[in-house]
């Protein structure tokens, strides 16, 4: 840091510190450090909270607390009849942040949209390999194969041309990786020989502008005075106090050192609900925890055997013991808060006697199987080992011997993809964009066999339904197709659907306007503090 830059930064920080005492500062005890500040480079929610949901905006965005897509930097859009062209009309007069390190000379326009996507799309873009350029979400959502070209019609109109119709395309654009960067800032950094600064000192059009980051300690943001949504954000300063330990976060919350904390210890939840200094918000998470059979290996290639095992599983006991009440029994592969959830589907009733009889009717005797328990904690499965033990006990009641196996997380993910895998795998999924395709096609589609489809299940009637739903734009028709797919899934039982977790957010009583977001983001744009 040069002396001049140090003086400038010191002056800015002192001015902000002085002003902060008279202003409202919201402190969020975040659970970890962001990997960087360019949300397109990463896949973790912690990084998205600190970048995509604070500093940046997108063409379309999720309405906080829902998976409904609303206009963002684009005021409106229209799709061509064949579903191959999407034209976005951009909001005029949107300003990029003016910070200690960048002063924009122009408003947001089509060049920024084109830059934000082309750096991920095109090998020849100067930013394609900057900061490692892995673009995992862009690749994971198949955007590279999907987008044919992005054209600037005029300064405030952009057209995306696709290679095939894709109904979830608009929902994809509301995801963090589709955040809009400043092309002007990127050009300046490239010219200065420091393109990586885009990932370290971010500039966007979001509700908060980046002020400073002390690694692993504190991230500071100030209100964006020119934010395009009137009257927002409500607080003047936002601070992320990075606090990895959940018990310590709770202590800080009680001591008034922070206003909001995520991911409480399940064991602390009951006490928090009784604590007068804490307000507890909760919402069903957009996730599913499941056990996937290997449907390509006998006897699990027989749907009746899978169904019998599902009937032997006491899912309510799992919810009580493993989730300590912070979950609900899952009957479908998508969560109940997602559109097209088929509530008419009947879950397999817990009936060990009937399950045993069913296995015998299928000629299965003295069955031994492996159950894979994840070595990590996830919202959809806070304790896989304990869950596996409960399943082991349940299955022993119908004469099925279970051996529990586990591997290091990377190994677990890798080995569980094998089509000749021995055993049923405990795993789960948290939704990215609120579209059923993001669950059903990724986790159960034929393309995922040998990969993210851990059941190795490719069932043509199901596949036909989800592929058709991907290409039609009529919402009612899509809903019907996904409902049909869920009924087929239940009949074929490639998984035992186990649980959807409940997300708890403890906060101080003075916090107002916080809404738990189903996609797992922590959003502070509409949050205020009572005087």
């Amino acid at each position: 840091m040069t002396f001049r830059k140090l003086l400038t930064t010191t002056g800015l920080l002192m001015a902000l510190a002085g002003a902060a005492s008279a202003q409202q500062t919201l402190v969020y005890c975040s659970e970890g450090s962001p990997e960087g500040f360019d949300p397109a480079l990463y896949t973790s929610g912690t990084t998205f909270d600190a970048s995509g949901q604070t500093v940046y905006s997108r063409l379309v965005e999720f309405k906080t607390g829902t998976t409904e897509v609303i206009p963002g930097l684009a005021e409106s859009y229209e799709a061509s009849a064949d579903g191959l062209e999407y034209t976005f009309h951009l909001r005029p007069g949107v300003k990029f942040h003016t910070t200690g390190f960048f002063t924009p000379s122009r408003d947001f326009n089509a060049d920024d949209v084109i830059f934000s996507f082309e750096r991920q799309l095109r090998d020849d873009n100067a930013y394609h390999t900057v900061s490692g350029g892995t673009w995992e979400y862009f690749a994971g959502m198949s955007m590279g194969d999907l987008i044919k070209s992005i054209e600037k019609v005029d300064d405030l109109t952009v057209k995306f041309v696709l290679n095939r119709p894709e109904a979830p395309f608009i929902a994809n654009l509301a995801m963090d990786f589709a955040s809009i960067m400043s092309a002007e800032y990127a050009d300046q950094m490239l010219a200065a020989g420091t393109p990586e600064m885009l990932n370290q000192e971010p500039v966007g059009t979001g509700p908060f502008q980046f002020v400073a980051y002390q690694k692993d300690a504190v991230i500071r943001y100030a209100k964006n005075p020119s934010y395009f949504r009137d009257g927002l954000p409500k607080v003047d300063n936002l601070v992320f106090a990075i606090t990895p330990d959940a018990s310590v976060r709770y202590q800080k919350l009680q001591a008034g050192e922070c206003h909001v904390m995520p991911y409480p210890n399940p064991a602390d939840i009951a006490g928090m609900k009784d604590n007068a200094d804490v307000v507890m918000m909760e919402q069903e998470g957009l996730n599913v925890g499941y056990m996937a059979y290997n449907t390509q290996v006998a006897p699990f290639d027989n749907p009746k055997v899978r169904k019998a095992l599902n009937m032997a599983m006491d899912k309510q006991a799992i919810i009580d013991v493993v989730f300590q009440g912070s979950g609900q029994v899952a009957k479908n592969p998508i969560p109940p808060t997602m559109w097209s959830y088929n509530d008419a589907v009947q879950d397999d009733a817990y009936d060990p006697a009937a399950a045993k009889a069913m296995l015998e009717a299928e000629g299965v005797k003295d069955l031994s199987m492996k159950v894979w328990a994840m070595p990590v904690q996830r919202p959809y499965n806070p304790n896989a080992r304990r869950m596996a033990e409960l399943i082991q006990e349940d299955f022993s009641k119908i004469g099925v011997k279970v051996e529990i196996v586990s591997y290091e997380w990377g190994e677990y993910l890798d080995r569980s993809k094998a089509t000749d895998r021995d055993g049923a795998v405990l795993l789960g999924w948290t939704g990215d964009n609120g579209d059923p395709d993001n669950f059903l096609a990724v986790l159960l589609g034929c393309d995922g066999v040998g990969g993210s489809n851990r059941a190795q299940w490719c069932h043509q009637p199901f596949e036909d339904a989800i592929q058709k739903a991907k290409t039609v734009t009529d919402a009612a028709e899509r809903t019907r197709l996904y409902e049909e797919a869920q009924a087929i899934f239940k009949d074929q039982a490639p998984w035992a659907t186990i649980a959807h977790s409940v997300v708890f957010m403890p906060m101080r009583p003075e916090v107002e306007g916080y809404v738990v977001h189903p996609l797992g983001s922590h959003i502070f744009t509409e949050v205020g503090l009572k005087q």
Partner: protein
Amino acid sequence: MLRYLLEKIFTFVPTFIGVTLISFAFIRVLPGDPIIVMAGERGVTPERYKELQEQFGFDRPMLAQFWDYMNGVLHGDLGTSFVTKKPVWDEFFALFPATLELSICAIIIAIALGIPAGVIAATHRGKFFDRTLMSTALVGYSMPIFWWALLLIIVFSGMLRWTPVSGRIDLLYFFPDVTGFMLIDSLLSGQKGAFASAVSHLVLPSIVLATIPLAVIARQTRSAMLEVLSEDYIRTARAKGLSPFRVNGLHALRNAMIPVITVIGLSVGTLLAGAILTETIFSWPGIGKWMVDSIFRRDYPVVQGGLLLVAVAVMVVNLVVDLLYGLINPKIRKR
């Protein structure tokens, strides 16, 4: 003295090569692939996996990868983190001052309390103070750090509200890093109350981190003192009518210090290991947590570079300890 110093530095070379080799091999021997870990439940297609392997250089033979790494190390380049995309040097030096500050405070507490406690215990051998102290030291040595830290937080921060829960300074204070040492930077900032806030944030983590070295130093001082106190020259000193303070504090303690200094030098390794848990619980932004996170993420450059730099830091401290031997006992220097 210079020759002694050069000889010592020369012994660094094989250790340095050994550490470089071990840190390179260690992370690769562990099961788990950084690309698979990075992709998570989402997974990665075989084509994409191949692309990323090429990008990170994992497709090259292991020997070639090691050569690249060694070449980088010798040119002062420890690589770039797979995760944050920042140079390992930059990350290390942004975090190391926090660990150093905490470790220095912890070792000061451990020495300031451990040596007098050990001396008093030795001079009151078998009495109530000795027994209480040694039992307390044993408890301190065997206590799980995370449990001890949480207990202190609940009592002193939660119930009594005497100290802040975690962090390095109150969020109200806001100034850029100059040295990275919060105590110094808070003074330089000129902001009223900043230094006091930094001190109050250091209290609990320093106590927690000091606990094990304090117990070890106290016990080591006691046993070394007991050995020295039975020597003839101590009896002579007492017979000469010297005050107990001069006998114990000067004649005995000086000779008992050699093993104590060895233990203090070795405690640096313990401090860094203890810092991993202490830093996690107290949200202390140091290298302990950084290293652990990097192991979980299989962030090879950070694990390799971090281990190497920590090893160098431990070697430097041990060099200082060796030099201190020479100062305390000239016979060692002359040998």
